């Protein structure tokens, strides 16, 4: 199905949020995930369903500054 990932429409296989992470080869421990502006707890990534047109936001840790 087509979902929006970080502002960009992408075709991803599967039916739950974790499938999108797997398709992008992203370790769930490396990101905070928002689905339609709501944060999804890491434990719920595998049980949260995705619908076509959903907006996913993968927020990577960004720790630099010095």
């Amino acid at each position, binding site marked *: 199905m087509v979902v929006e990932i970080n502002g960009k429409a992408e075709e991803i296989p599967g039916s739950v949020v974790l499938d999108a992470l797997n398709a992008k080869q*992203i370790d769930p421990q*490396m990101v*905070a995930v*928002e689905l339609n502006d709501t944060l999804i707890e890491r434990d719920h990534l595998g049980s949260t369903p995705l619908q076509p047109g959903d907006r996913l936001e993968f927020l*990577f*840790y*960004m720790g*630099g*500054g*010095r």
Partner: protein
Amino acid sequence: MNFTDEQITRYSRHILLPEVGGKGQKKIAQARILIVGAGGLGSPAALYLAAAGVGTLGLIDNDVVDLSNLQRQVIHHTPDVGRPKVVSAKEKIQALNPDVNVVLHEERFMAANALNLVRDYSVVIDGVDNFSAKFLINDACYFAEKPLVHGGILRFDGRVSTIIPKQSACYRCVFNGPPPPGLVASCQEAGVLGVLAGVIGTIQATDALKLILGIGRPLTDRMLDFDARNMRFREIPVKRNPRCPLCGAHPTVTELIDHEQATCELRPPVAAAHGNEP
């Protein structure tokens, strides 16, 4: 307090702004801003806040200037290599604006001293380069109820977000805790386009000044992500998380902790999800 003629001239472009005026400039002159880290983000933030006439600027850093810092840490100059960063920064601030009282804390920001450091200031700017310190700053500002302007930079990307404790989403509302150590590369390995520090540090200074002046809408409950490759800003809405380990309904973080970690990034080697393709 009254401004001298020289000060009125110096701050005239502020005073001309109806939202600032003489009254606002006085607020700036009475403000106390703490900058944690006198490096990439801290450099532009300190310079602009000094230029703006912030009354007291606190600087925390226990490092010395390294040649590899000069590509982005614009407050330090070539002859400063080997000198303490806080000393080098103080000289530039005072050369730029002798009105500013610079308070030096030549120490590491740790659980043991964090709360006492933060308590003395009205706004805190995060200019550190590791998760351990970023979470510690977030937690200390929460416990001391001090507004925090968070920033991060990496490679070609940067992020800013403002946190008003108990009112807006905190760093832990989004990122529960520091990433697991095994997955991360070091800052030195990752690299950063130097100018990112200027873009992000200057936005941090902007929001800090707005907080002092009480004008506009701060960057709360959102993360502003900057992608320099595509020259794109994106705003990601975030919310207070009832399950936040710090500010949620049942907090598990109830005291300050030193997480043992000296890393600054956590991303897949290929920036697959970030839309960085041209």
